[in-house]
């Protein structure tokens, strides 16, 4: 049996996976974190398919978020942070969309989003915490109060109430669970039975996947299931939580996929420049998304020189000595 055949119907092209599993208006969670393991190939496909009115829920997201927002696919966003560290301390198209009033935004903290996805993953209705007491993260609401309780918007952003297990005054924050329609992840390995293995930090990927109704995983390699099942302590998700597997070498570029490649400083700098103006960003979208339906063509345009520059040392996980200025 050819590797991948065991996946049967679950093995999809990017077009099939997005076309079948992502709908206009969906609540979508993006895996990864700022400059690592963003599901870039899947996000470019969403843009090409012209999917609209998405409601995104993320913790700290960078490149995938900014591209989706910039392309006009997103109407609502719940987030803790939008940026790519030194390359864009604030995600550029996100910033512009918010300042121009094109995006409804609800701010939470990273722990808030973590616990909200965890609640969704555990099937719990909410989660208590103590973060944000006294802050505007709890005091101010971004979403129109008239929309609360409708569609994907919970009836309260958060509730501050008394800890019922304390006899002293003890306020706690209650946060509503997040249950995305679909979660998009990029992993290093998927077995040909659908088992997923993420190497390095898992961020919130596992909670986001377990909280979702549908899960699309793009991956660097599809490998024999027997290899993954020989060391199941290292695996991340069982097959029956994965709806579509997309074979996507360099599918997180220009963000990093540890042990395969580093983030691409030249591309992230190029993006930073082009994202500054509407016109240049339109050009970026045309050049890097709309005109490049296939990953081979995309990688050819990145160029072998940069592909080799960012190639990770397979022991260290990153590209040592990479010029990151």
């Amino acid at each position, binding site marked *: 049996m050819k590797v991948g055949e065991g996946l049967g119907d679950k093995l999809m092209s990017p077009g099939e996976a997005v076309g079948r599993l992502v709908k206009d208006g969906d609540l979508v969670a993006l895996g*990864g*974190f*700022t*400059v*690592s*393991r963003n599901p870039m190939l899947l996000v470019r496909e969403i843009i090409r398919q012209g999917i609209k009115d998405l409601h995104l829920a993320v*913790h*700290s997201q960078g490149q995938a978020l900014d591209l989706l927002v910039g392309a006009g696919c997103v109407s609502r966003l719940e987030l*803790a*942070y*939008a*940026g*790519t*560290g*030194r*390359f864009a*301390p604030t995600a550029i198209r*996100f*910033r512009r969309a*918010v*300042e121009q009033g094109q995006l409804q935004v609800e*701010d939470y*903290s*990273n*722990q*808030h989003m*973590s616990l909200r996805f*965890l609640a969704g993953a555990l099937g719990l209705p909410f989660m208590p915490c*103590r*973060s*944000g*007491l*006294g*802050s*505007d*993260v709890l*005091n*101010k609401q*971004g979403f129109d109060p008239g929309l609360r309780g409708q569609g994907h918007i919970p009836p309260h952003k958060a509730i501050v109430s008394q800890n019922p297990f304390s006899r002293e005054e*003890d*306020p*706690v924050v209650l946060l509503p669970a997040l249950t995305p329609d679909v979660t998009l992840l990029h992993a290093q390995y998927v077995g040909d039975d659908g088992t997923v293995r993420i190497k*390095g*930090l*898992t*961020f*919130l*990927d*596992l*909670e986001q996947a377990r909280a979702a109704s549908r899960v699309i995983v793009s991956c660097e390699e599809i490998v024999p299931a027997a290899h993954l099942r020989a060391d199941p302590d290292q695996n991340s998700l069982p097959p029956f939580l994965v709806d579509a597997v997309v074979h996507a070498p360099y599918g997180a570029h220009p963000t*990093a996929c*540890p042990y395969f490649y*580093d*983030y691409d400083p030249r591309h992230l700098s190029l993006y930073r420049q082009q994202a500054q103006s509407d016109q240049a960003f339109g050009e970026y979208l045309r050049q890097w998304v709309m005109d490049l339906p296939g990953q081979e063509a995309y990688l050819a345009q990145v160029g072998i020189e940069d592909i080799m520059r960012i190639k*990770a040392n397979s022991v*260290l*996980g*990153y590209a040592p000595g990479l010029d*990151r*200025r």
Partner: protein
Amino acid sequence: MSERYTDKEMMALAAGRLVKDGDVLFAGTGLSMLAATVARRVHAPRAVVFFETGGIDPSLEELPLAVADPRVMVGTAMNSGLIDAFSLLAHRRLNTIAFLGAAQIDPYGNINSTCLGDYHHPKVRFPGCGGACDAASLAAGVILFMQHDRRRFVEKVDYVSSVGWLTGGDSRRRAGLKRGGPIAVVTNLGVLRFDDESKRMYLAEHYPGVTPQEVAEHTGFALDIGRGQEAAPPSQRELDTLRQEVDPDRLILGPPPA
């Protein structure tokens, strides 16, 4: 001791001096990475660094440029994710110290990294509070980095992304936050601390060559400068460690002293 040094070098070292041996450091990237790393190498060898992304006690052979940089996943005690990282941040048995930066700060150390202007129609949108809100709420202490200017040191921030001492006194505790609060603000002019009682910011140290008056002039609210002492300049060991071991490529330090 007459060697020249940059503002960034002084800031990294001034913050590093605030680290105690055994502290568990919740680091962002940028200056906080330098402060944590130099402290471990100079005077706090048992301090440990971890990242909100789940990288716990990495070897940091190369400087990460983001908390999700693959360089925070190497040589770690363990790799996990956000849930575990925030469990450590809040842990009652750990003296977790968080390094945070922001766009605005008020006299009680409340910070804004969300927006300028009205939240619903912001003039400028920033990235959002990220894990800073959590660190400010849950860590045993917070060390803040700020560029010192009047538009950033304001009487009232436009949006409280991450709480400091709230309105001062015991208001933080009354809001339900059991521990923590800002310890110091490290700027390009000096180190500010918070009054034990009122919790209002005061000048604790001004760097060599900076006068207390200059600090007050760059602060957009009334600042007590009466307690200001001159900071010790960087020692040769501190500078050598920072320049030769911690950031030899000056990725974060930027240009060397002129």
